[in-house]
């Protein structure tokens, strides 16, 4: 159990770094939601270890990192983790490109939740919905295979 988290947490660390990594201006608009994708991956492959609580705690870190209101990403990622737990048995049957389409929808929903809550609490939301979801869907097969080989290598 602990061995699994020794692998899971560093992958989230990498995702957090990627989520604030400086990029070219245009690429910024389609920056994939790395943390959300990593969460989806871990819920997908080992739903017994990764779940809503992991999503919540990573969301809190993401909030502080991005300077959003505390709990915004925590709520959105918890909902995302729940959705993935409902979907994971079906998602496993697809190949990674087909999963990409589902990722597009899931990340879109995640951003939508974030946008809703932000507009309710702050009066205005700053999130773009479409392009980051598209970026995530495109990069998903790569990210999935990368994380999968990491997981296999460490037998987490």
């Amino acid at each position, binding site marked *: 159990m602990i061995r699994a988290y020794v692998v899971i947490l560093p992958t989230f*660390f990498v995702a*957090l*770094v990627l*989520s*604030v*990594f*400086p*990029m070219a*201006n245009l690429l*910024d*608009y389609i*920056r994939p939601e790395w943390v959300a994708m990593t969460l989806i991956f871990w819920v997908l492959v080992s739903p017994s270890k990764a779940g809503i609580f992991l999503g919540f705690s990573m969301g*809190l*870190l993401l*909030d*502080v*990192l*991005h*300077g959003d*209101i*505390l*709990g*915004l990403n925590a*709520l959105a990622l918890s909902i995302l983790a729940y959705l993935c737990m409902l979907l994971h048995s079906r998602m496993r049957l697809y190949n990674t490109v087909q999963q990409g389409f589902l990722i597009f929808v899931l990340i879109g929903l995640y951003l939508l939740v974030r946008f809703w*809550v932000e507009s309710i*609490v*702050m009066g205005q939301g*700053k999130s*773009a919905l479409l392009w980051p979801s598209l970026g995530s869907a495109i990069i998903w097969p790569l990210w999935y295979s990368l994380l999968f080989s990491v997981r296999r290598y460490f037998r987490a």
Partner: protein
Amino acid sequence: MLADRYLTPTSAVRSTLGYLIVPVQWVSSIPGRLGLWAEESAMSHSSLLEDNNRLRLESLVLKQKVQQMIALRAENNRLRELLNTSEQLDDKILVAEVIGVDPDPYTHHIIINKGSSHGVFVGQPILDAQGLMGQVIEVLPYTSRVLLVADSNHAIPVQVNRNGVRAIAVGSGRLDELNLVYVPDTADIKVGDQLVSSGLGSRYPKGYPLGEIIQVEHDPGQPFAQVMAKPSAYLDRSRYVLLVFSMESELPSVMASQEAEQ
């Protein structure tokens, strides 16, 4: 989340979590620092000498100006004494390094490597060598987040240096443009005028350069003139910034009432 918006105790949670994200920010700033280091260590001997000479000359010129400044400041203070107004004090300054930029393309925030453990506070003004950059909006133990003047959520009271006309400069969301709002058509503002902070609103200290007017448009269909300015600070390039500890801004009553408003 409502708690975060309307209560203060969550800031304790935030700063505790802030310790956890220090390594993330450190790692994400590695490429930038690596680039800087490579640039510095690959510099040739001759260009270093050249740099050294240029800097020495510059420092000489600046020293001469400082000598003049001291006399002028003393005179200014004597005159102020005659007028029974408060004495002007030097601002203390802390140098910080930019270690990150907000990934969201719709906001203009930067992250600097000084935080509450260095005495940084929310609302503190930030400068670079050219002019005002912005203000601190969030303080973590070792880092803080700065809102740049060009962000569309930012406004700053300014004065035209030439004649003292007051205005408000609102960020446009683009890094090279500020808009002056509510400027009457008859106001004496021309292209090329320098803008300085007016010190009203008691957040920014008085007299730091903000930018230069680049366009004044009088549209008969609009109630106010459309005035655009270009920030003089290098908002997208500065690596080192200055945190100002202003002596004049310690006005407890004003600050308290401002906090009550927020």
